[in-house]
């Protein structure tokens, strides 16, 4: 497991290393702030950050960038902030470690975070695909309707024509349908 700890408090960083002793292979690197390790971030499986670090905002923005390969984030939470940990998890933090936690639990928290994160990534991917499929189907239906109206075809013939266009051009059905709608708009004088 490759773990990056962003925390100016060396004791907490040491706690993580201690808790993971025995995990092989293991690499734990700690830094007081994100910028010092920014270029190396791709080399880690999980990031552990203190909740009072201003770098939380930077980590959140990384999650937004689709091009960036996201990493699960585990947060150290101060016990004086009840409920914060749960809210952070809802906002996308994978798991949390409450201050003063025994080193022996660190390993399980990180492992749970990794598993949970991978599961969430998969669900998100599935959802995005389902949404894209649904959007493509709507576009195909609109293109079919257009062909039926303009060319006087029945539904099946309109669909076959679309499929032929897609196969001839070697492009996905949804893309061909979208083009057809766009061109039809232009011909009608739209933009």
């Amino acid at each position: 497991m490759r773990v990056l700890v962003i925390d100016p408090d060396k004791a907490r960083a040491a706690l993580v290393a201690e808790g993971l002793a025995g995990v092989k292979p293991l690499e734990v690197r700690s830094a007081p702030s994100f910028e010092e390790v920014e270029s190396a971030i791709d080399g880690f499986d999980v990031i552990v950050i203190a909740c009072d670090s201003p770098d939380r905002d930077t980590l959140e923005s990384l999650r937004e960038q689709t091009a960036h390969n996201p990493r699960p984030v585990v947060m150290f939470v101060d016990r004086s902030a009840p409920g914060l940990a749960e809210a952070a998890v809802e906002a996308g933090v994978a798991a949390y470690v409450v201050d003063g936690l025994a080193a022996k639990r660190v390993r399980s928290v990180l492992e749970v975070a990794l598993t949970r994160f991978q599961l969430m990534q998969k669900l998100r991917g599935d959802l995005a695909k389902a949404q894209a499929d649904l959007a493509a189907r709507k576009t195909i239906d609109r293109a079919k309707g257009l062909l039926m109206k303009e060319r006087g075809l029945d539904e099946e013939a309109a669909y076959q024509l679309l499929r032929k266009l897609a196969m001839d051009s070697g492009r996905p059905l949804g893309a061909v349908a979208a083009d057809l709608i766009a061109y039809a708009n232009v011909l009608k004088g739209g933009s």
Partner: protein
Amino acid sequence: MRLKLGFIALTDCAPLVVASELGLFEDEGLDVTLSREASWANIRDKVAAGALDGAHMLAPMALTAPVIAPLSLNANGSSITLSKALAEQVRGLDDDEPSPRTAHALRRAIDRRVELGERPLTFAVVFPFSIHAYLLRYWLADAGIDPDHDVRLTVVPPPRMAARMLAGDVDGFCAGAPWGAVIEAAGAGEIWVQGSRLWRGAPDKVLGLAAAFAAREPNSVQPLLRALIRAAVWADEPANRETLAEILSRPAYVDAPVAALRRALIPPEPFALHFHAEDAGYPRRSHALWLLGQIRRWGQIDETVDVQQTAGRVYRPDLYLQAAEAVGAATRGRLLDTEPLTPLFDGRAFDPARLDDYLESLPLGRRPAPGR
């Protein structure tokens, strides 16, 4: 009634700090603890969790959180700052010096970097959901610079911005006061264009109150708003601005040099940062819709979110007006709901009732085309 409010170290946390320092909360029978937070993410999470009852909050953050915004804390105050090196490069390419400065000269600098095979420029904001992110994106896109492809857009905590700029790994940023002035004073960069020149009266921070708190303690909301409106009126008084700069500069609040705070509070130009004047406190539905539009433009929310409904749920001018009237600070009342907004620097009119048309008319953006 005891309550806890969060804030971030910025000049526009002034209404909260003033209400606390001047005893205005006590006047209204409230026992308020202010808590300086390290990140916007913490503000959002703590308010959502009830660890804070409310906070100084980025308006676009409030619009995507379980809060109500019964008060807008300020207008104007942000600026786009370029590093010394980039400012020099861009200045050389600025032949017609438009006012306010557009990003066209920057576009030429970027094109040249691409030709020379130099690394892309890095621009920073303080949070992805912020007026700073949307002003910067709007300004870049207006000149044909795609903020998601032609530059690298990142988030850097403002207190570290000067060091990052001096190190050469941040070339420009957009943030609220006093951070542009702090960077200038450190010799790391130059305020290139004031946000108020891009959009006079741009909405910025709001008071975000946990929706659960407002529902549980409706009788505390009005005293809280009255205290903050009185503080905003005090903070706008020119005679009080020196004192305000001194108070804010203290380690417990913004923790920055007084000179940097004076820059936004006592500036030479009009349309500067204000808290109450020009109806700055009124949470305008049209502002909420403009911001939601930008959130949508850059693909940060699901297309299915009902923006009209969201704006109505979060922004609560009714609560503001009740409090403003009670302290004699209300001006044009509900008229502000229908008054058209001052356009941005590109002059494009914004009609909140026709948000989709407005978004269609804007260049670039990651918003999927309808039907796809």
